[in-house]
Protein backbone atom coordinates (compact mmCIF):
# COMPACT_ATOMS: atom_id res chain seq x y z
CA UNK A 1 0.00 0.00 0.00
CA UNK A 2 1.24 3.53 -0.75
CA UNK A 3 1.45 5.69 2.40
CA UNK A 4 0.75 9.42 2.49
CA UNK A 5 4.48 10.15 2.79
CA UNK A 6 5.16 7.92 -0.17
CA UNK A 7 2.52 9.77 -2.17
CA UNK A 8 4.20 13.10 -1.35
CA UNK A 9 7.50 11.76 -2.58
CA UNK A 10 5.97 10.22 -5.66
CA UNK A 11 4.40 13.51 -6.65
CA UNK A 12 7.66 15.44 -6.31
CA UNK A 13 10.29 14.40 -8.81
CA UNK A 14 12.82 16.50 -6.90
CA UNK A 15 12.58 14.19 -3.89
CA UNK A 16 11.86 10.85 -5.57
CA UNK A 17 14.72 8.49 -5.08
CA UNK A 18 15.71 5.59 -7.29
CA UNK A 19 14.56 3.26 -4.52
CA UNK A 20 11.10 4.81 -4.47
CA UNK A 21 10.81 4.54 -8.22
CA UNK A 22 11.79 0.88 -8.23
CA UNK A 23 9.55 0.12 -5.24
CA UNK A 24 6.52 1.42 -7.15
CA UNK A 25 7.52 0.17 -10.57
CA UNK A 26 4.80 -2.48 -10.54
CA UNK A 27 2.09 0.11 -9.89
CA UNK A 28 3.58 2.35 -12.59
CA UNK A 29 3.55 -0.40 -15.23
CA UNK A 30 0.11 -1.58 -14.17
CA UNK A 31 -1.30 1.92 -14.66
CA UNK A 32 -2.29 2.24 -11.01
CA UNK A 33 -0.64 5.58 -10.27
CA UNK A 34 -2.33 8.96 -10.57
CA UNK A 35 -1.43 11.29 -13.41
CA UNK A 36 0.70 13.40 -11.05
CA UNK A 37 2.55 10.34 -9.81
CA UNK A 38 3.16 9.18 -13.38
CA UNK A 39 4.50 12.62 -14.21
CA UNK A 40 6.97 12.37 -11.31
CA UNK A 41 8.01 8.92 -12.45
CA UNK A 42 8.51 10.04 -16.01
CA UNK A 43 10.51 13.09 -14.89
CA UNK A 44 12.82 10.93 -12.75
CA UNK A 45 13.27 8.40 -15.54
CA UNK A 46 14.13 11.22 -17.94
CA UNK A 47 16.83 12.45 -15.56
CA UNK A 48 18.22 9.15 -14.30
CA UNK A 49 20.07 6.82 -16.68
CA UNK A 50 20.32 4.08 -14.06
CA UNK A 51 16.56 3.99 -13.56
CA UNK A 52 15.99 4.08 -17.33
CA UNK A 53 18.24 1.06 -17.64
CA UNK A 54 16.51 -0.68 -14.74
CA UNK A 55 13.04 -0.07 -16.22
CA UNK A 56 14.14 -1.42 -19.60
CA UNK A 57 15.68 -4.54 -18.07
CA UNK A 58 12.61 -5.07 -15.84
CA UNK A 59 10.35 -4.94 -18.90
CA UNK A 60 12.73 -7.28 -20.75
CA UNK A 61 12.63 -9.68 -17.82
CA UNK A 62 8.85 -9.97 -18.12
CA UNK A 63 9.04 -10.55 -21.86
CA UNK A 64 11.90 -13.04 -21.60
CA UNK A 65 10.14 -15.18 -19.02
CA UNK A 66 6.96 -15.26 -21.10
CA UNK A 67 8.78 -16.21 -24.30
CA UNK A 68 11.05 -18.79 -22.64
CA UNK A 69 8.12 -20.63 -21.11
CA UNK A 70 5.78 -20.16 -24.06
CA UNK A 71 8.24 -21.86 -26.38
CA UNK A 72 9.20 -24.73 -24.16
CA UNK A 73 8.27 -28.22 -25.14
CA UNK A 74 6.19 -28.91 -22.03
CA UNK A 75 3.06 -29.46 -24.14
CA UNK A 76 3.28 -32.91 -25.75
CA UNK A 77 2.18 -33.41 -29.36
CA UNK A 78 -0.35 -35.94 -28.15
CA UNK A 79 -1.53 -37.04 -24.77
CA UNK A 80 0.20 -40.18 -23.49
CA UNK A 81 -2.25 -43.07 -23.91
CA UNK A 82 -1.46 -44.54 -20.51
CA UNK A 83 -2.48 -41.24 -18.90
CA UNK A 84 -5.78 -41.24 -20.80
CA UNK A 85 -6.47 -44.81 -19.69
CA UNK A 86 -5.54 -44.03 -16.07
CA UNK A 87 -7.89 -41.03 -16.00
CA UNK A 88 -10.82 -42.93 -17.51
CA UNK A 89 -10.20 -45.94 -15.29
CA UNK A 90 -10.17 -43.74 -12.18
CA UNK A 91 -13.52 -42.30 -13.17
CA UNK A 92 -15.27 -45.65 -13.09
Amino acid at each position, binding site marked *: *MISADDVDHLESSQTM*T*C*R*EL*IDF*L*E*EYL*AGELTAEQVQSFDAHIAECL*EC*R*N*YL*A*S*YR*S*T*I*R*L*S*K*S*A*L*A*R*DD*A*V*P*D*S*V*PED*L*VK*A*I*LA*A*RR
Partner: protein
Amino acid sequence: MGQAVTDRPGPAAVVDSDAEGTLLARLRRGDASAFEQLVRDHAARLLGVARRFLHNDADAGDAVQDAFMSAFKAIGGFAGGASLGTWLHSIVVRAALMKLRSRRRRPEQAIEDLLPQYTADGHRVQPGPGWCNDVEERAERDENAQIIRQCIDQLPLQYRTVLLLRDIEEFDTEETARLLGINPNAVKTRLHRARQALRTLLDPYFGAAAAVSK
Protein backbone atom coordinates in the same frame (compact mmCIF):
# COMPACT_ATOMS: atom_id res chain seq x y z
CA MET B 1 -19.94 -20.21 -34.41
CA GLY B 2 -16.28 -20.21 -33.42
CA GLN B 3 -14.81 -17.61 -31.15
CA ALA B 4 -11.20 -17.07 -30.20
CA VAL B 5 -10.59 -17.31 -26.48
CA THR B 6 -7.76 -14.88 -26.04
CA ASP B 7 -8.74 -13.00 -22.92
CA ARG B 8 -8.31 -15.83 -20.46
CA PRO B 9 -5.44 -17.81 -19.06
CA GLY B 10 -3.77 -20.52 -21.03
CA PRO B 11 -3.00 -20.62 -24.73
CA ALA B 12 -5.56 -19.12 -27.02
CA ALA B 13 -7.82 -21.69 -28.62
CA VAL B 14 -10.68 -21.42 -31.02
CA VAL B 15 -13.80 -22.62 -29.25
CA ASP B 16 -16.73 -24.01 -31.24
CA SER B 17 -19.53 -22.89 -28.93
CA ASP B 18 -22.14 -25.24 -30.42
CA ALA B 19 -19.90 -28.30 -30.29
CA GLU B 20 -18.87 -27.45 -26.75
CA GLY B 21 -22.48 -27.01 -25.69
CA THR B 22 -23.28 -30.44 -27.07
CA LEU B 23 -20.31 -31.99 -25.30
CA LEU B 24 -21.30 -30.32 -22.04
CA ALA B 25 -24.83 -31.72 -22.30
CA ARG B 26 -23.41 -35.21 -22.90
CA LEU B 27 -21.06 -34.84 -19.94
CA ARG B 28 -23.94 -33.84 -17.67
CA ARG B 29 -25.85 -36.94 -18.79
CA GLY B 30 -22.85 -39.07 -17.76
CA ASP B 31 -22.03 -40.14 -21.31
CA ALA B 32 -18.78 -42.14 -20.99
CA SER B 33 -17.64 -41.32 -24.52
CA ALA B 34 -18.05 -37.62 -23.72
CA PHE B 35 -15.63 -37.94 -20.79
CA GLU B 36 -13.15 -39.65 -23.05
CA GLN B 37 -13.51 -36.88 -25.61
CA LEU B 38 -12.96 -34.25 -22.92
CA VAL B 39 -9.76 -35.96 -21.83
CA ARG B 40 -8.43 -36.42 -25.35
CA ASP B 41 -9.29 -32.83 -26.32
CA HIS B 42 -7.59 -31.17 -23.33
CA ALA B 43 -5.12 -33.48 -21.56
CA ALA B 44 -2.06 -32.59 -23.66
CA ARG B 45 -2.44 -28.87 -23.04
CA LEU B 46 -3.16 -29.40 -19.35
CA LEU B 47 -0.09 -31.60 -19.08
CA GLY B 48 1.97 -28.73 -20.49
CA VAL B 49 0.56 -26.39 -17.85
CA ALA B 50 1.26 -28.88 -15.03
CA ARG B 51 4.81 -29.43 -16.27
CA ARG B 52 5.54 -25.69 -16.06
CA PHE B 53 4.80 -25.83 -12.34
CA LEU B 54 6.06 -29.30 -11.44
CA HIS B 55 8.92 -30.16 -13.88
CA ASN B 56 8.44 -33.82 -13.10
CA ASP B 57 6.44 -35.96 -15.55
CA ALA B 58 5.04 -38.25 -12.90
CA ASP B 59 3.83 -35.37 -10.72
CA ALA B 60 2.48 -33.51 -13.75
CA GLY B 61 0.56 -36.63 -14.83
CA ASP B 62 -0.84 -36.98 -11.31
CA ALA B 63 -1.93 -33.34 -11.29
CA VAL B 64 -3.71 -33.76 -14.63
CA GLN B 65 -5.42 -36.90 -13.38
CA ASP B 66 -6.47 -35.13 -10.18
CA ALA B 67 -7.73 -32.22 -12.26
CA PHE B 68 -9.93 -34.41 -14.43
CA MET B 69 -11.31 -36.21 -11.37
CA SER B 70 -12.24 -32.84 -9.87
CA ALA B 71 -13.77 -31.76 -13.16
CA PHE B 72 -15.83 -34.93 -13.52
CA LYS B 73 -17.23 -34.44 -10.02
CA ALA B 74 -17.96 -30.76 -10.58
CA ILE B 75 -19.36 -30.94 -14.12
CA GLY B 76 -22.92 -30.82 -12.87
CA GLY B 77 -22.26 -27.42 -11.29
CA PHE B 78 -20.31 -25.95 -14.20
CA ALA B 79 -22.40 -23.02 -15.38
CA GLY B 80 -20.73 -22.72 -18.78
CA GLY B 81 -19.85 -19.04 -18.34
CA ALA B 82 -16.27 -19.74 -19.42
CA SER B 83 -15.11 -22.30 -21.98
CA LEU B 84 -14.40 -25.84 -20.83
CA GLY B 85 -10.73 -25.27 -21.63
CA THR B 86 -10.56 -22.19 -19.43
CA TRP B 87 -12.38 -23.99 -16.62
CA LEU B 88 -10.06 -26.98 -16.83
CA HIS B 89 -7.04 -24.67 -16.92
CA SER B 90 -7.97 -23.25 -13.49
CA ILE B 91 -8.56 -26.74 -12.13
CA VAL B 92 -5.21 -28.11 -13.27
CA VAL B 93 -3.38 -25.07 -11.89
CA ARG B 94 -5.03 -25.71 -8.50
CA ALA B 95 -4.06 -29.38 -8.69
CA ALA B 96 -0.46 -28.49 -9.55
CA LEU B 97 -0.29 -25.99 -6.67
CA MET B 98 -1.56 -28.64 -4.25
CA LYS B 99 1.09 -31.01 -5.54
CA LEU B 100 3.74 -28.34 -5.01
CA ARG B 101 2.57 -27.75 -1.43
CA SER B 102 2.79 -31.46 -0.67
CA ARG B 103 6.39 -31.69 -1.80
CA ARG B 104 9.30 -31.47 0.57
CA ARG B 105 10.68 -27.96 0.25
CA ARG B 106 14.22 -27.77 -1.06
CA PRO B 107 16.59 -25.18 0.45
CA GLU B 108 15.94 -21.80 -1.14
CA GLN B 109 17.85 -18.59 -1.48
CA ALA B 110 16.27 -15.74 0.48
CA ILE B 111 14.46 -13.37 -1.88
CA GLU B 112 16.12 -10.40 -0.16
CA ASP B 113 19.48 -11.60 -1.51
CA LEU B 114 18.13 -11.18 -5.05
CA LEU B 115 16.53 -7.75 -4.66
CA PRO B 116 18.27 -4.46 -5.50
CA GLN B 117 20.36 -2.99 -2.70
CA TYR B 118 20.34 0.73 -1.96
CA THR B 119 22.57 3.37 -0.39
CA ALA B 120 21.26 5.54 2.43
CA ASP B 121 20.21 8.22 -0.09
CA GLY B 122 18.18 5.81 -2.17
CA HIS B 123 20.54 5.08 -5.06
CA ARG B 124 21.13 1.53 -6.19
CA VAL B 125 24.36 -0.05 -5.06
CA GLN B 126 26.46 -1.06 -8.10
CA PRO B 127 23.77 -0.43 -10.69
CA GLY B 128 26.00 -1.50 -13.55
CA PRO B 129 25.36 -0.82 -17.22
CA GLY B 130 22.02 -1.57 -18.83
CA TRP B 131 21.19 -4.71 -20.74
CA CYS B 132 22.21 -5.39 -24.34
CA ASN B 133 20.00 -3.95 -27.05
CA ASP B 134 19.50 -7.37 -28.61
CA VAL B 135 18.31 -9.10 -25.43
CA GLU B 136 15.23 -10.59 -26.97
CA GLU B 137 17.04 -11.84 -30.06
CA ARG B 138 19.63 -13.51 -27.85
CA ALA B 139 16.88 -15.05 -25.75
CA GLU B 140 15.55 -16.82 -28.85
CA ARG B 141 18.57 -19.11 -28.86
CA ASP B 142 17.80 -22.45 -27.26
CA GLU B 143 20.62 -22.26 -24.75
CA ASN B 144 19.46 -18.85 -23.54
CA ALA B 145 15.85 -19.96 -23.23
CA GLN B 146 17.11 -22.81 -21.06
CA ILE B 147 19.07 -20.33 -18.92
CA ILE B 148 15.95 -18.22 -18.42
CA ARG B 149 13.93 -21.26 -17.35
CA GLN B 150 16.68 -22.29 -14.93
CA CYS B 151 16.72 -18.80 -13.42
CA ILE B 152 12.95 -18.93 -12.94
CA ASP B 153 13.42 -22.26 -11.17
CA GLN B 154 15.86 -20.64 -8.76
CA LEU B 155 13.23 -18.25 -7.44
CA PRO B 156 11.85 -19.15 -4.01
CA LEU B 157 8.65 -21.14 -4.46
CA GLN B 158 6.12 -18.58 -3.26
CA TYR B 159 7.53 -15.97 -5.65
CA ARG B 160 8.00 -18.36 -8.57
CA THR B 161 4.39 -19.47 -8.21
CA VAL B 162 3.04 -15.93 -8.44
CA LEU B 163 5.27 -15.18 -11.44
CA LEU B 164 3.98 -18.28 -13.21
CA LEU B 165 0.35 -17.54 -12.40
CA ARG B 166 0.45 -13.83 -13.34
CA ASP B 167 2.99 -13.53 -16.13
CA ILE B 168 2.80 -16.97 -17.76
CA GLU B 169 -0.64 -18.39 -17.08
CA GLU B 170 -2.03 -14.82 -17.18
CA PHE B 171 -4.44 -15.05 -14.26
CA ASP B 172 -5.32 -11.61 -12.97
CA THR B 173 -4.44 -10.43 -9.46
CA GLU B 174 -7.79 -11.40 -7.93
CA GLU B 175 -7.79 -14.88 -9.46
CA THR B 176 -4.19 -15.44 -8.40
CA ALA B 177 -5.06 -14.37 -4.86
CA ARG B 178 -7.96 -16.85 -4.78
CA LEU B 179 -5.84 -19.69 -6.12
CA LEU B 180 -3.14 -19.08 -3.53
CA GLY B 181 -5.39 -18.16 -0.62
CA ILE B 182 -3.63 -14.82 -0.08
CA ASN B 183 -4.80 -11.24 -0.43
CA PRO B 184 -4.38 -9.30 -3.68
CA ASN B 185 -1.81 -6.90 -2.21
CA ALA B 186 0.36 -9.87 -1.28
CA VAL B 187 0.11 -11.05 -4.89
CA LYS B 188 1.28 -7.65 -6.16
CA THR B 189 4.18 -7.52 -3.70
CA ARG B 190 5.31 -11.04 -4.49
CA LEU B 191 5.04 -10.48 -8.25
CA HIS B 192 7.18 -7.35 -8.12
CA ARG B 193 9.77 -9.08 -5.94
CA ALA B 194 9.77 -12.13 -8.22
CA ARG B 195 10.38 -9.97 -11.28
CA GLN B 196 13.13 -8.01 -9.53
CA ALA B 197 14.79 -11.22 -8.35
CA LEU B 198 14.55 -12.79 -11.80
CA ARG B 199 16.09 -9.66 -13.29
CA THR B 200 19.00 -10.02 -10.87
CA LEU B 201 19.46 -13.68 -11.84
CA LEU B 202 19.36 -12.87 -15.56
CA ASP B 203 21.69 -9.87 -15.31
CA PRO B 204 24.95 -11.87 -15.65
CA TYR B 205 23.67 -13.36 -18.92
CA PHE B 206 21.94 -10.41 -20.57
CA GLY B 207 23.68 -7.39 -19.08
CA ALA B 208 25.91 -5.29 -21.32
CA ALA B 209 28.92 -6.59 -19.36
CA ALA B 210 27.98 -10.11 -20.43
CA ALA B 211 28.00 -9.10 -24.10
CA VAL B 212 31.44 -7.54 -23.80
CA SER B 213 32.90 -10.62 -22.17
CA LYS B 214 31.58 -13.00 -24.86
